[in-house]
């Protein structure tokens, strides 16, 4: 469960204060599927980064699974991120010199999981996302859809409670985008919390709960 209360985030750009987030208060229940939409610069990515513990708010509190994570140190945040949050990015962000299997394995390597256990999980994930035949291929030998599937498998390798996707279809053609959204929806059906940032209304409309943001504030919150 995610609970944000009065989150403020300001940036200083060229000597001017820019309010990226203004008093955002938001509660996301475990297992919810949420989309955040809004024009460029509306603060949706900043909100996602704060939920993902990559960024810190200037004011307000953030509770993740009933634990206040606002005041944690960088290393503590890294550990929480590793255990509870999986990221999917618009540009996939796969490590180019590593194979698909090695990319999926990376979070488990960072947290020091036993190699035998890692191999078992990687194999399982490759099968789940239809990548078994591509396991030895490097990112430049994979299609965009395959890359994003590798990225999703990587995000799932630590079995996090929350998946955060920032424009996951932004770099894919329509058909492949639909396919990737299908994968994310399956994660939701299996009980995961999925938060998707997008500016594509069609993609946004697929979520159960839909947030709209303008100028750093949440302007609408629809369900159903």
């Amino acid at each position, binding site marked *: 469960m995610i609970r944000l209360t009065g989150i403020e985030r300001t940036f200083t750009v060229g000597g001017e204060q820019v309010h990226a987030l203004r008093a955002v208060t938001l509660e996301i229940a475990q297992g919810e599927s949420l989309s955040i939409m809004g024009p460029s610069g509306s603060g949706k990515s900043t909100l996602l980064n704060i939920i993902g513990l*990559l960024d810190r708010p200037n004011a307000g509190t953030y509770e993740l699974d009933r634990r206040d994570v606002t005041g944690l140190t960088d290393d503590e945040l890294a*550990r929480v991120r590793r255990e509870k949050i999986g990221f999917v990015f*618009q540009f996939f962000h796969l490590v180019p010199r590593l194979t698909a299997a090695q990319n999926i394995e990376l979070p488990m390597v960072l947290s020091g999981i036993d190699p035998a256990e890692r191999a078992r999980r990687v194999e399982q994930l490759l099968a789940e996302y239809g990548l078994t035949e591509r396991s030895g291929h490097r990112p430049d030998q994979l299609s965009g859809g395959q890359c994003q599937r590798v990225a999703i498998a990587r995000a799932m390798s630590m079995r996090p409670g929350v998946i955060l996707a920032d424009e996951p279809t932004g770099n894919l053609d329509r058909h492949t985008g639909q396919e990737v959204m299908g994968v994310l929806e399956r994660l939701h059906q299996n009980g995961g919390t999925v938060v998707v940032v997008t500016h594509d209304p069609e993609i946004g409309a697929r979520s159960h709960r839909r947030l709209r943001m303008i100028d750093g504030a949440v302007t609408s919150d629809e369900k159903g």
Partner: protein
Amino acid sequence: MRFADLLGFAWQVVLGYRSRTLLILLAMGIGVAAVVTVTSLGEGARLYVVKQFGSLGTNLVIVLPGRSETSGSMPGVLIGKTPRDLTIDDALALKRSHAIRRFAPLIVGAGDVRSGARRRETPVLGSTAELMDIRGMELASGRFLPAGDPRHSQPVCVIGTKVANELFGTRQALGDWIRIGDRRFRIIGILAAQGESLGFNTDEIVVVPLAAAQALFNTESLFRILVEAKSRDQILDAKADVEEIIRLRHEGEKDITVITQDAVLATFDRILRALTLTVGGIAAISLAVAGILIMNVMLIAVTQRKREIGLLKALGATGRQIQMAFFTEAALLALGGAAAGVAAGEFGNSIISQVYPAIPFEAPWWALVAAPVTAILTGILFTVAPARRAAMLDPVQALARR
């Protein structure tokens, strides 16, 4: 993160950026190879000199008349003013010391040596049978001077190979007679070719009994006395004994100079070792240059791999893990460079050894340890700044769109 995984990750990076890896290996390799080769040269020179001194005879104490402190650069070649001569009796008195194994009085002069119509000016040494062992001389044929009372002598001599060749050519020299000045000597031995050994070329000398040399050069006084101590530990005792015995015989006056081979050798040893360290240190500067190159390359890597670092952070890597990844990478590169450098250095040594076989070129053990260790330490040290920069990177900015 497990250590094996850390190594594996760094290994992937090293393999992934080939030209960068080769560049660093080259820089590190050159630095280490320079240290290994240069110190080998220094060490080779040192060993060469030590060996040359060793060939003079071991545990040697040299006694010469006169005090040397007034003039001269090196006491061994000094012929100073002599207030009181060293005599055969002075030499024989040394038998009283328990620290002395043997001694050989020595007279040196230039003699006009003739055989038939051939003549040659050569150094003539007057000494006793002990000279051979003290100086470590070797015979090609015949025997050395006979033992016996040094005050009496037989008309015999031992000649160097070159003297034999020059005077006799292909004829048999052993057993034949030569003339030195107005005296005749029968050749009873020919020295083996040993070449130069600091001061004398044994190929070009003629050795006659002491008493014969005294008569030949019309002198009572000795050029010097070569004394061999019983062991290395007793060199100082032997020196003290010599000084005391001669002082008593010279009415309490200390009018001789005693130099020990050990002291001269130790001085040379120190000088050459210091020299080796100095040039080794200069070569080590190239290691520092290689270190700076590593720093540069690592800084570039941090910028190039910004997105990757941001990704690792998003995936839950701590700042420490990212630093460790960079350190491991630098250590791997430095280690590879050091290995390549040691190999190249040893290869260079073997080539130089082929060209100058007389000098024992060999990298000293401390250089083989110090050069790679320095390489790895500089590699890691110069990675501190880049690694910190990577660890401090803001993941949001690092992952931001291009």
